């Protein structure tokens, strides 16, 4: 069974984000990049499925700039078998639907039984790419999965809902998205990091996928970032002091009631 994992490289969640001079994008120099944390769950789950079945491949697929190869290498070091990066200067900054179109086109050349994707990328938080990939491929999608089991050409998933979970089943091929709790992603060991350097990692252009860069260009974008800004700054934190615990508690409650109006 072949599992394809959709992967995105994102800025480290522990990093502060800075905005460029014309406020159109973030500053990317000096930024540390990581694999999207929800995609780590996807890579781990893909590897576990292959290990359990004892056959098949885990193929990592990404759309992004050249530097995204580092995130793919990390997935290969965790234990994925192959990587494919779609990179093309003509793509510019694709919106989620464009990214999904490119991924769907790339998936035509990759035989798969299952696609696993992070529920969202923690940079643009759009949630749209997995749903659109499933739509363009005409396969069922199960969102926010915390547990899965594959048996006889079917996949059963436990999905996280607002008030609990639901166990659902669908036929393969299918796509599911990850929710925290699905697994604990492994760390890549040093020998595996070395081994990963020899694993196949292919880079493809849009033309190689039979896509017309002009059609995917800025004019076709349905969403476009106009400007970025920082959230409004808060005033300096007002420290509540007091001689005793009771005094501090009383002052806080009084302040929240009278000054902040939240109690």
């Amino acid at each position, binding site marked *: 069974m072949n599992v394809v994992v959709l992967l995105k490289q994102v800025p480290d969640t522990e990093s502060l*984000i800075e905005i460029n001079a014309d406020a159109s994008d973030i500053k990317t120099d000096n930024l540390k990049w990581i694999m999207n944390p929800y995609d780590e769950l996807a890579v781990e789950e893909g590897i576990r499925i292959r290990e359990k079945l004892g056959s098949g491949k885990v193929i990592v697929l990404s759309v992004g700039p050249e530097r995204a190869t580092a995130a793919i290498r990390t997935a290969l070091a965790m234990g994925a078998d192959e990587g494919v990066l779609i990179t093309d200067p003509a793509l510019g900054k694709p919106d989620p639907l464009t990214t999904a179109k490119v991924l769907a086109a790339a998936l035509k050349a990759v035989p798969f039984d299952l696609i696993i994707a992070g529920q969202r990328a923690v940079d643009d938080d759009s949630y749209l790419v997995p749903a659109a990939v499933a739509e363009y491929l005409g396969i069922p999608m199960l969102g926010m999965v915390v547990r899965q089991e594959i048996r006889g050409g079917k996949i059963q998933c436990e999905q996280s809902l607002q008030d609990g979970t639901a166990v659902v089943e669908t036929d393969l091929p299918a796509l599911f998205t990850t929710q925290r709790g699905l697994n604990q992603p492994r760390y890549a060991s040093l020998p595996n990091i070395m081994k990963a350097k020899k694993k196949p990692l292919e880079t493809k252009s849009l033309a190689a996928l039979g896509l017309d860069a002009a059609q995917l260009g800025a004019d076709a974008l349905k969403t476009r970032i106009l400007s970025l800004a920082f959230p409004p700054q808060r005033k300096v934190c007002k420290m*509540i002091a007091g001689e005793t615990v009771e005094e501090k508690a009383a002052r806080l409650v009084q302040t929240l009631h009278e000054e902040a109006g939240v109690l």
Partner: protein
Amino acid sequence: MSDGILVVTECADNRFRKSTYEVVSEGRRLSDQLNTSLTVVVLGSDVLSAAAELKHYGADRVLVCEAPELADFDSDRFTPILFDIVTARQPKIVLFSASIRDKQLATRLAAKLHAGLAMECTGLALEGENLIATRSMYGSKLIAKVALAGTPQIAALRPNVFPAAAVEKASEIERIQVKLVPSRIRLIEKRQSVAKLDLTESDVVVSGGRGLGGADFSVLETLAGLLGGVVGATRSAVDEGWRPHADQVGQTGKVVSPKLYLACGISGAIQHIAGMSSSGCIVAINKDSDAPIFRYADYGIVGNLFELVPAIVKQIQK
């Protein structure tokens, strides 16, 4: 000719989610601005009586889609129904709540229509007939202005941000003949947890971090219960197994905007701040006066949370 605004509601057990009223109200506001009509869709198995309530929130028309097969949410069944409605009525704008359920529905509908979608919006404006969405990115680290193009333009609104406003309208209720498509997804079992308000919808969130030192969050539970709020947790508290994953607040968990956020025993890691910095009022309780959390809080107390939180509970009870 596209016209009008369509709002998709979320109804369970004959009751709308709190966020539904917020989205309907924002739909009303935009409809007035565009001088167009507001149509609201209700999907479910027994939703007619609930649907009537929407006239108090400014709906001009309520479309009721009822079928026994719609009792449980199934994006495979719900999406085509919405697709048909949008295709037939050609709204310019479609609004959802960014609840867990409707994030799925909004993304699937956007994909099927190949329409632009702005997720987790915190503000909407119009430029001509086009939507300009304000939304946070990188958790709440940045705020982006996003221009949508094409028809329809879809926005999913972050719960707890938009006000719900009562506006009386003589709503027309229209029952839609639902064309059901077979679903590829079979529901095996529903595991309902104890009904509690979701973190993203609660007015008060009391969160705990490593400073709790273990899985006993009872001091926070008591305070949250007293304030009608819910308990949240940091990534490290969740990673330790002290709290379920659903409770995690942060860039890799839930992004919340309650009126009051109490951070107890939380140092203030950047990825946690990204999940709560859009809260109304932030109170930090930490024994370390140098903890970064105080830089992001409105009010701070240095001290032992196991003494302070019960003392705060006592004060509120007075």
